[in-house]
């Protein structure tokens, strides 16, 4: 115990010894995050299309997504475990359900934000509803949608660490193991890597967001 107290707070040699595992956990974290965001985006797009087509469903859809968002992730995992076990499926159901509120809101707001004049002219040019949606409304709404994806992705990266409690986890595995051994270095590695990963993803998506809306930059330069 006396030796434990003289141990420094961060053991750099431990980090150097575990670079391989850090890389493995990075891959795991990326996969967990990637699946959740992509599946979340698909589900949200479908639900948003329903909400846009039948306006009356927007309230109930966001209300349900809001409840899912309010339920703590650990609670959601907990009552899925009796049914789906300590599995990847449990983790992904929980993670995906967190992205829905953020994504649906941004998709609907983005589509609603497309100027009426643009839609009018597209219709005048003979665009069908489907072509109008995919060729005009979605591209113009993309910056707002990607802004939603940024928030969802950063949120999911943080939540993935909690999935270590149900045997998944990415960087969360370091946090949980460090906790069990009361080893600060390992907890710090898990936490810091998760933050770094979230910031990196945010920057990549920010770059994408800017590329998808070149007209905003052109406007900014002109004014």
């Amino acid at each position, binding site marked *: 115990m006396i030796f434990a107290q003289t141990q420094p707070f961060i053991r750099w040699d431990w980090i150097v010894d575990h670079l391989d595992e850090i890389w493995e956990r990075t891959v795991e974290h990326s996969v967990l995050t990637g699946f959740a965001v992509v599946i979340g985006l698909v589900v949200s797009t479908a639900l948003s299309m329903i909400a846009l087509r039948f306006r009356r469903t927007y309230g109930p859809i966001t209300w349900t997504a809001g409840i899912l968002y309010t339920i703590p992730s650990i*609670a959601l995992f907990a009552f899925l475990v009796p049914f789906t076990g300590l599995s990847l499926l449990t983790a992904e159901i929980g993670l995906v359900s967190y992205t829905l509120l953020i994504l649906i809101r941004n998709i609907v707001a983005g589509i609603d934000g497309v100027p009426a004049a643009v839609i009018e002219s597209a219709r005048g040019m003979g665009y069908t509803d489907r072509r109008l949606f995919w060729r005009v409304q979605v591209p113009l709404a993309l910056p707002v949608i990607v802004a939603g994806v940024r928030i969802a992705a*950063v949120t999911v990266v*943080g939540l993935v660490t*909690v999935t270590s409690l149900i045997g998944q986890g990415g960087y969360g595995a370091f946090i*949980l193991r460090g906790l069990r051994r009361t080893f600060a270095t390992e907890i710090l590695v898990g936490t810091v890597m998760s*933050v770094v990963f979230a910031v990196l993803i945010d920057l990549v998506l920010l770059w994408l967001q800017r590329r998808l809306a070149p007209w905003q930059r052109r406007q900014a330069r002109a004014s």
Partner: protein
Amino acid sequence: MSDFLSELGAFLADPDAWLGGAGLLVRTRDHVLLSLFAIGVAALIALPPAVWLGHRRRGGVVVGALVNVGRAIPSFGILALMLPISLALGLGIGFWPTFVALVALAMPPIFTNTYTGVVEVDPAVTEAARGMGMTGRQLVRRTELPLAMPVIWTALRVSAVQVVATATLGAVVGWGGLGRYVIDGFAQGNDVYVFIGGVSVALLAIATDLAFSFGERFVLPKGTHHRDRGELTSSAAV
């Protein structure tokens, strides 16, 4: 599956599971008290500087950075980190690491949203208030704070829900509360415990959200509008 349901029924029919020393009622009470305490302390620390900076219209860059970083920080990691720190300081496991982590996690959203609420008060309104001869202090208390109240209240609501959620994880650093069911259940492979914990925490989080929505009508000054949670500048899921 039917095993699970009959075990769940047996658990729910046992009065000790509800009223016992480590029963649902006691754990719910502990969970609520710790969450209230943490939110209160976080608000006491975060509100004054946020209002002051918003009033002076300074520090926008810092707030912007806090919003982004706040969302990226995993609450599980912060909670876990508090354990070795607490042990090193001789504060032990359980209450202190959980409490400090909850306060630390509740502060950024309260701070950033309060700041935004005050900064976004229409300059024409503050001009008019100054024109009427209000001093800086009067301006804050009679104009800026009441107008920012809806945003501040929403910030408290979001933080409270987040604190209730994170308090669940307190069980991994030795605290009690409803998280015990989940964490012990995982450790023992007891699905009934896990399920009970999950449902009770979910209900408590939803109840917290509803309580704050209900409190709105008593707290918000007349004529100010409720802001939807989607308009918040920062909130993190837990």
